[in-house]
């Protein structure tokens, strides 16, 4: 064969492997462009456009850099950092021993406890707030029991609307991050390294400081920074458990937007917020890169052991108690409180009348005179479901093509990928503010439209949808298809027996994800939802801020409904996940 012929046949092969390589550039990426277009168009209109509006408003306004606005910004930034650092330290204080517990010991109920510690991470903030309220609030289990027991006139525990409540909820939310990140590193840590150091003359204390700690340090730092990032951008927890006097950047944006109607200051705060999260996110991804270079080896289950001596048993028992109290009690208190009548009737507080009741649930269907709503509360649930449905449809329609492009990415796909992830970095409140600024006047006057809420939810859900579809779509290996073909399946049959089940599971999981995100979303919704179109979270917030046992009970009932829906979704997603894939 002549050299020319060889070159030609090589050329042919190349064409065969990527059919469009000889086409002009725009044509070569035609598939990609088609797949990305809807999502990019959407995110441009509903994310980048509002963002530029925030920037524009900030820069053009005279109040933007006035001493008063700077003072507000500095104060709220200061408090945001303060509470985030404090929350992070407390989370490490609970999370590090818990990580050690899960990584090193085997005990009964371990899998369940581990699963339970992971649930809060996905729970809507309103549910968490309601849970802590049901446990520790003035009408909560603990206070009512103590009042009855000790014959007191007023609730003895006043943790609600204090910094303590905020910190507690943050620990509740984020401990699972420490358990996962540090626990994983810890269980990958080869115990023989410790043994080797012991034989080389290191006592247990020095073995810890010279070997264990340096090897875990990158993971501890990464976990701490991630926790810090979540605490820094926390909104619902602060508003619901701390009250408006604890104004973080997020809460201050909300207050300036809705109560002060001072949009330029809100814009300034949003810009600061964006810059901070951007910086922390970059730091975090740097650190993450470090953790993966320094892993040691091996599978771990074989190293788990049962407690050997009394000290270990005391440690295990204490940790289980703390974790149970922190993670299980609030989630138990909430549904129980929603079906219990605990207050003594008509000022007769001699005896605590404990009885089961379905009143709070029945009330959800009644439109009371004098209520803040124009509609029965159950309408909020219907609104939420409708919004969630729209969010699922929109995010799947735009997310699926992108995820299928990313399953076998070309250069353009890789380039575009981070763009769609950017909304993860912006806070939901900032998004809400951007919507208010951008869509309150022509050309896009949507502010009166109930559509704004699901559009915002779609922006938030889209990255999650893409990230949960992509690995599943990428995981369908050619080998499976080839194996099926070798076993005599036609290509149509192959698609139905191999591709479809995997794609179907992935789509269902992604849909559940989007559904859950939309159902519980509070930050953007609190700015965008109209009073006559409440969602479950905004309704819970309003019930919680009203006085009276009935309002309280209804908040508990709705939060319970939301908690059950979310928990079911989490377990469904977990079930749908392909074995050996995912995690975060």
């Amino acid at each position, binding site marked *: 064969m002549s050299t020319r012929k060889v070159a030609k046949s090589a050329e042919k092969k190349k064409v065969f492997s990527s059919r469009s390589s000889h086409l002009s550039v725009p044509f070569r990426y035609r598939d990609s462009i088609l797949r990305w277009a809807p999502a990019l168009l959407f995110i441009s209109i509903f994310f980048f456009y509002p963002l530029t509006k925030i920037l524009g408003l900030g820069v053009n306004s005279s109040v933007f850099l006035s001493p008063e606005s700077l003072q507000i910004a500095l104060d709220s930034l200061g408090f945001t950092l303060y509470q985030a650092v404090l929350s992070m330290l407390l989370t490490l204080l609970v999370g590090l021993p818990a990580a050690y517990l899960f990584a090193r010991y085997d005990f009964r109920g371990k899998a369940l406890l581990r699963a339970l510690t992971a649930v809060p991470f996905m729970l809507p903030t309103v549910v968490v707030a309601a849970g802590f309220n049901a446990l520790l609030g003035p009408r909560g289990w603990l206070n009512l029991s103590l009042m009855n027991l000790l014959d007191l006139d007023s609730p003895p525990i006043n943790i609600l609307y204090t910094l303590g409540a905020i910190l507690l909820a943050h620990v509740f939310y984020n401990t699972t991050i420490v358990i996962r990140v540090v626990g994983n590193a810890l269980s990958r840590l080869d115990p023989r*390294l410790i043994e080797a150091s012991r*034989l*080389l003359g290191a006592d247990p204390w020095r073995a810890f400081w010279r070997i264990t700690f340096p090897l875990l340090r990158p993971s501890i730092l990464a976990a701490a920074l991630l926790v810090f990032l979540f605490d820094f951008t926390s909104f619902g927890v602060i508003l619901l458990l701390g009250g408006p006097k604890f104004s973080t950047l997020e809460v201050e944006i909300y207050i300036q937007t809705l109560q002060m109607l001072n949009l330029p200051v809100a814009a300034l705060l949003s810009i600061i917020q964006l810059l901070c999260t951007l910086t922390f996110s970059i730091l975090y991804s740097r650190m993450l890169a470090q953790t993966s270079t320094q892993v040691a080896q091996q599978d771990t289950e074989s190293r788990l052991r049962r407690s050997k001596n009394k000290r270990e048993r005391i440690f295990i028992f204490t940790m289980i108690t703390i974790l149970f109290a922190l993670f299980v009690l609030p989630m138990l208190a909430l549904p129980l409180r929603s079906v219990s009548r605990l207050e003594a009737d008509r000022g007769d507080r001699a005896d605590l009348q404990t009885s089961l009741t379905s009143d709070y649930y029945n009330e959800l269907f009644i439109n009371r005179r004098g209520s803040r709503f124009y509609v029965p509360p159950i309408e909020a649930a219907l609104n939420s479901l409708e919004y969630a449905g729209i969010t699922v449809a929109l995010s799947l329609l735009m997310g699926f093509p992108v995820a299928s492009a990313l399953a076998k990415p070309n250069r353009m796909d890789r380039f575009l990928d981070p763009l769609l992830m950017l909304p993860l970095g912006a806070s939901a409140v900032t998004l809400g503010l951007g919507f208010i600024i951008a869509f309150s006047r022509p050309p896009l006057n949507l502010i009166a439209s109930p559509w704004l809420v699901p559009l915002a939810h779609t922006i938030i859900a889209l990255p999650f949808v893409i990230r949960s579809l992509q690995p599943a779509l990428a995981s369908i290996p050619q080998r499976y298809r080839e194996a099926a073909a070798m076993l005599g399946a036609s290509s149509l049959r192959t698609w139905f027996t191999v591709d479809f089940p995997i794609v179907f599971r992935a789509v269902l999981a992604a849909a559940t994800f989007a559904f859950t995100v939309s159902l519980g979303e509070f930050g953007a919704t609190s700015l965008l939802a109209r009073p006559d179109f409440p969602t479950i979270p905004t309704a819970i917030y309003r019930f919680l801020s009203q006085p009276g046992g009935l309002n309280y009970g209804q908040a508990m009932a709705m939060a319970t409904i939301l908690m059950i829906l979310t928990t079911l979704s989490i377990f469904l997603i977990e079930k749908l996940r392909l074995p050996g894939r995912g995690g975060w």
Partner: protein
Amino acid sequence: MLILSNIHKSYEGKPLLRGISLEVGEGETICLLGPSGGGKTTLLRIIAGLENAEEGEVNWNGKDISSVPPHKRNFGLIFQDYALFPHLNVFDNVAFGLKMQKLGREEIHQRVMKSLQQVDLIGLESRDVIDLSGGEQQRVALARALAPRPHLLLFDEPLGALDRKLREYLLAELRSILQESGVPAIYVTHDQDEAFTLADRVMLLHNGEIVQRGTPAEVYARPHSGWVAEFLGAGNVVQGKILKDGLVETIFGTVKMPVEERQAEGSPVTLLIRPRDVRIGNLSSPLRGTVKDVVFQQDRFKVVLKGGFYFYLSDPVNVGEEIGLKIEMGKIQRLAE
């Protein structure tokens, strides 16, 4: 001098070590040889102080050290996959034990370099250990164990993860390092070639007991049992039944045993027939079999008969052919059950 007496240990309720006793003398290298999962590693960990025996005593130079923690024993342990500290470079890995002894900077430097020289790793001091090849990692592990001048070296299948060529090379190196340093050593392996190369004495561990001990030559020449012979691959282990007049019936025919071995007729015996003692005979021989397989092995052919009996020939025979065998009678060994 190390003396273990009557060590017992169980794992999840099953006995793993059942009364192990052994001694290691000055400058002596002992190899513990046995199949995987036989408790060899556990025994090593008990000596190192990483685990406690349920019964028995670990005695070092006349003192019971059962309750001395590992960092006060000054024994060196080389792990199967080395357990190098991934966050330290080669130098700091080797220096770790010296730093624990709180030696001065200058002395640490000198002794690290000397250890690295011993294992031929000069020039790699500042390399990250995760960037090293398997063989280099193995040597760092050795240098790290040697640097603090341990009283006793413990090896846990240290060459198990390497390919054959590298293993043979490192084995020769290890042999000379052990001879030079004069440190007593216990070497655990399931590979008889490693054991025979290094050991002054070999101990065979089976079902938690030492079933045979002796120099490599002794053990190989006179395996005590059918299990030992088979584990060492010493030859054909053949079951038989005693007839009269020192004759033994096997599935390959009748063989004659030395007459002093008088036993009741019909009682079972285990025989070891080494392939080197087997020749091809004529078909009228009382021993015969059908050729099942012939395998070419460089300078000879391995002939396997139906029933698994094997020996070597310089010229091939045909598969399916019936052949007679000739065995030098004095060479057949009787084994314990």
